[in-house]
Structure formats: C-alpha cells, structure tokens
C-alpha cells in the first residue's frame, strides 16, 4: 500500500533524477518571459525577434556561465490576473530562474508585485508607468525602458519654448496614459506657471471614439495638445483630427508616436510637425546601433522597430546580470542588477541603484512626411540620466525597504 512516506521517497528520487539527469552543468539556464503578444502584436512581434536575436548571439558566443541560454515565452493576454498565473506557472512548472518582459503598465505592476511576493528578480521590459520604480517600487523589480516621466521630461523643453497657454490632453485610460498625463501636468506647471489645462479626454484603450473625442477637444479651443495615444487609437485620432481641422494652428505633442510601429502605418497621413518621442532607426549612426541593425536585417530581412531594441536589450540585461552575479541565486542576481552597466543599441545604460530604473535614453524630434511616409526630423538623442528627477525627490516617492 502506498503511504505518505512512499510518496515522499518517490518524489525525492524523481527530484534527484531530474537534477542529475542531463549532466547538471550542461542544462540550459532558463529565463521566463511573459508578454501580451496577441494584444499588442505591432510592438511585440518585433520585440520577440529582438529577444531571439540576442539569445542567438549569446549562445553563439558560448552562452552564460558555460551554459546555454533558453527563454521560455508565454502570452499573458494583456491582463494582470492571467499574467500572475502565467508567471507562477513559469516559476513552478518551467523552473525558470527569474522573470522578464511585459508591455502594458497595469500588467507590469501586477507582475512586479508578484515578484515581490515570490522574492524573484523581475526585469520589466516595456511598461512605462512611473509607479513601477517609484510609488510602487520594490527591491525585486528593475525596468529597462525610458519611463513616461523621462519621455515627458524630454519633450518639456520644446513645450515650454512654445509658451502655449491653453493645453488639452488626451490619453488611453489605463495606467500608462494616466501616468503620462500626471507627469506632463506636473512638469509643465512647474516650468510654466499659469498654464491652463482646458480639456482632458480619457479614452478606452484600443476603442477610441475618435470623432467624438476630437470634437470635444476642439470645443475647448486649445493652443496645444498633449497626447499619449498609440497604435490604432493614434491612427484614428490622427485621421479624424486632420479631417475635422483640430490640428490647424495647434501644437501637438505625442509620446511614442515616432516609433516605427505606430508611425509607419500612418503613411502619407503622418501628422507633419508633431513633437514626439520615437526611433529614427535609419538615421542613427552610432557603431553599437549599426551593429545591431546589421545583425537584425541579416536575420530577418526586415528593419528593426523600437520593440526589437527593447526585446534585444532586455535579454542582454538579464545575461549581464547573471554573469555579474556568477550564479542564479536571487539575492546575488538582485545585487548584480543594482548598478549594472552594459551596452545596448542605444548606447551604455546603467540600472540605477536608487530606484532600479535604467538610464536608457530616447530619441526626441518632430514628425515629417517625405515620399508618402512619415519620418522623424530634427531629432536628438537624450540620455535617460538627464531626464530624471533629483535623488531627493526619488527617495521621497519610493517606499523604503
């Protein structure tokens, strides 16, 4: 008859087998990756290609700690509940060492909280909300991508220079859009006292009723508009706004709108003169970027999108952290991530010990239209470390641990 002891003995034997099985040292290092692939394919398919490219390069160079690198990817359905379930599955069933990935901010926050409960490292790739490293920051979460605060801060000098009085704001109504709007209001009010925010439209993510939103903004008669729309929402807003004459004599600032995944679909309708953050991939001439583009184009016969850079750099961060830690021990990995420096296609970055935000920069410029296609003109690169608030301010926002 089977007893509890028998079962335990069996389990122990199995565990011993699986440990000793495929020659311990040769088993690959597994990293769990989760993302909203089916919800945001425009960004995340290029992202996945970037991830795969980095894995290929790392393994071709001999892997990490003498072992091959393996990324186990899962779809989180763009929903916090599913994401936590998937993250748990990656840890307990797939036996991954730690977690990377996520795209929408609310999902990033959920996984970050999960990482805190389970005390495992989480490198957030793309969720941009400021809360992730500040108000809701925790010791286990690090973020690669330039946050909403940083990208907004990069646009603020141009906004202040224009000296517009009446601003209207439109944003996708979830964590990222709310975070971007809050950062913009705070930063602009500080630099330009007396500025008025005359209208605010919070649209459901992916379901903007563009005609009504454009009309509501136009009714407020703004001098300038700040938007954090992206994807299909952005395309509809651009088309309706242009047809209804909303953008005539109005300055428009739009986070992310210069990223090829969102700019290229607009083709000849790309809104000329908008101030944006983005990725003028064909014009960046640094050696680290040139090398990345050449490898990417050789592998995929396609040009990189911003997602490609994010996916690629996230894997490099994970690999560099393991190398620096010299082991897969969580405490050592987290210690290694803090202050970790490495190269990315956008240049050198550092994960700041103070808030776990990387100093990855972003490209800022204006949209132009040439040969029926949108592109970024008058662009400049802003280093992430120049777009962050003072250490004292960060300390105040981030919970003590």
């Amino acid at each position, binding site marked *: 008859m089977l007893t509890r002891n028998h079962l335990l003995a069996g389990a122990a034997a199995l565990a011993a087998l699986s440990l000793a099985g495929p020659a311990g040292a040769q088993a690959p290092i597994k990293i769990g990756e989760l993302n909203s692939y089916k919800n945001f394919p*425009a960004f995340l398919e290029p992202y996945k290609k970037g991830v795969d490219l980095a894995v290929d390069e790392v393994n071709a160079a001999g892997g990490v700690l003498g072992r091959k690198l393996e990324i186990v990817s899962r779809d989180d359905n763009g929903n916090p509940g599913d994401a936590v379930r998937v993250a748990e599955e990656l840890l307990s069933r797939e036996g991954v060492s730690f977690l990377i990935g996520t795209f929408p901010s609310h999902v990033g926050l959920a996984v970050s909280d999960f990482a805190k409960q389970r005390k495992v490292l989480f490198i957030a790739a793309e969720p941009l909300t400021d809360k992730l490293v500040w108000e809701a920051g925790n010791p286990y979460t690090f973020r690669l991508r330039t946050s909403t605060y940083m990208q907004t801060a990069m646009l603020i000098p141009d906004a202040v220079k224009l000296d517009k009085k009446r601003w209207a704001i439109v944003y996708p109504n979830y964590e990222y859009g709310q975070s971007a709007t809050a950062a913009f209001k705070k930063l602009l009010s500080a630099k330009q006292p007396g500025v008025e925010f005359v209208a605010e439209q919070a649209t459901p993510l992916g379901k903007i009723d563009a005609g009504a939103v454009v*009309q509501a903004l*136009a009714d407020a008669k703004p001098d300038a508009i700040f938007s954090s729309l992206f994807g*299909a929402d952005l*395309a509809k807003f651009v*088309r309706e706004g242009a047809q209804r004459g909303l953008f005539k004599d109005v300055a428009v600032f739009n986070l992310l709108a210069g990223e090829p995944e969102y700019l*290229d679909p607009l083709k000849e309708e790309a809104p000329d003169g908008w101030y944006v953050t983005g990725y003028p991939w064909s014009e960046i001439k640094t050696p680290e970027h040139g090398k990345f583009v050449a490898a990417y184009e050789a592998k995929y016969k396609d040009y990189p999108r911003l997602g490609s850079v994010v996916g690629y750099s996230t894997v490099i961060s994970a690999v560099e952290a393991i190398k620096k830690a010299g082991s897969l021990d969580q405490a050592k990995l987290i210690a290694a991530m803090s202050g970790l420096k490495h190269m990315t296609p956008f240049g050198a970055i550092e994960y700041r010990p103070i808030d776990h935000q990387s100093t990855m920069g972003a490209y800022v410029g204006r949209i132009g239209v040439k040969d029926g296609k949108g592109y970024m003109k008058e662009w400049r690169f802003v280093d992430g470390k120049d777009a962050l608030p003072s250490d004292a301010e960060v300390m105040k926002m981030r919970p003590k641990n």
Partner: protein
Amino acid sequence: MTFSSILIQLLNGLASASSLFLVSAGLSLIFGVTRIVNFAHGSLYMLGLYGAYTLIEVLGRTPLGFWSAVALAALAVGIAGVLIEVLVLRRVYRAPELFQLLATFAVVLVIKDIALFAWGPEDLVGPRAPGFDTAVEILGKRIPSYDLLLIAIGPVVLAILWLLLTRTRWGGAGAGGDPGPRDGGRAGR
C-alpha cells in the same frame, strides 16, 4: 457646450450607431435563421476589412479600385460565411447552446491567428473612401462627409432588408419554407 457642438456630437453618435447597426443586422439575421449566436460575426467583419485593404492595394487607389475592392471583399466574406456554415455551424445546430458558443468562439481564435499570419502584426490604415474623404462644414464645425454617408447607409440597408424579408419569397423561406434547424425560426426575428 454650444448648440453646434451638441449637434455635431449627435451626428457623430448617429454615424457610430449606423455602423453598429450594419454589423448587428447580420448577426441578428443569422440568429433568426439558425438560432445560433455567432461569436465569430465580428471576425468576419475584420476579415472583410483586411480583404478590402489588400484588394485596394492590388487594384490601385482609384475610386474604381476602392469601390470594387469593397464589393469584392464583401462577396469573399460571404463565401467564407458559407464555408463556416457548412463546416462548423451545421454540425452544432442541435448541440446545447454552450457548445455552439464554444464552436463559434473557436472560429474567432482561428480567424484572429489567420489574420495575424496573413497580414502581419502592424496596424493597417486603409485609404479614405474616394469622394467622401473631405469634411463638410456645419454651423462652423467640420464633420467628415463619410460620417454623413454612414448615417444615410444605415436606414437604406434597413429598408432593403425589411422589403426582402416581408415582400419576397426569399424572406418567406426563412419563415416557414425552410425547415431550418430546431424550430425554423423566422428570419430576422
């Protein structure tokens, strides 16, 4: 809020309502005839849009190219609908409702992946309808003429459907001639 902005928002609302009507008319017609709530109805609309986009690229961005692409795409989706009826719906007419929902939901997932595979992950922004790509000024505010076209199309389609269902043999077929599934429900009920 001024009178003119309320009027424009009213027109915006009518345009959205009209496009929603166009989608739901088909759903309700299919429910009336087959007694199946077709979860994949919206997916067929999506297929139609992607098909029209591709056909316009092939036929050229001219008025003729645009409108014939729209008509051809509609026909093609009609054929896809027939295929789905023969391959999927026919097998679940007598199944419990839950299985019908499950089967048509599976079609949603299949079509979603087909679209992702065939048309890629990037958003596609189709051209504006030729002849309806400008805006009309009403009380000093601009409204796209395409929205006005939509407002007109909805009632026209409604009238045509009503005539077809009540005044022709085809409509009567749905009422009784065709034994149909289950209880032979009246079309469009």
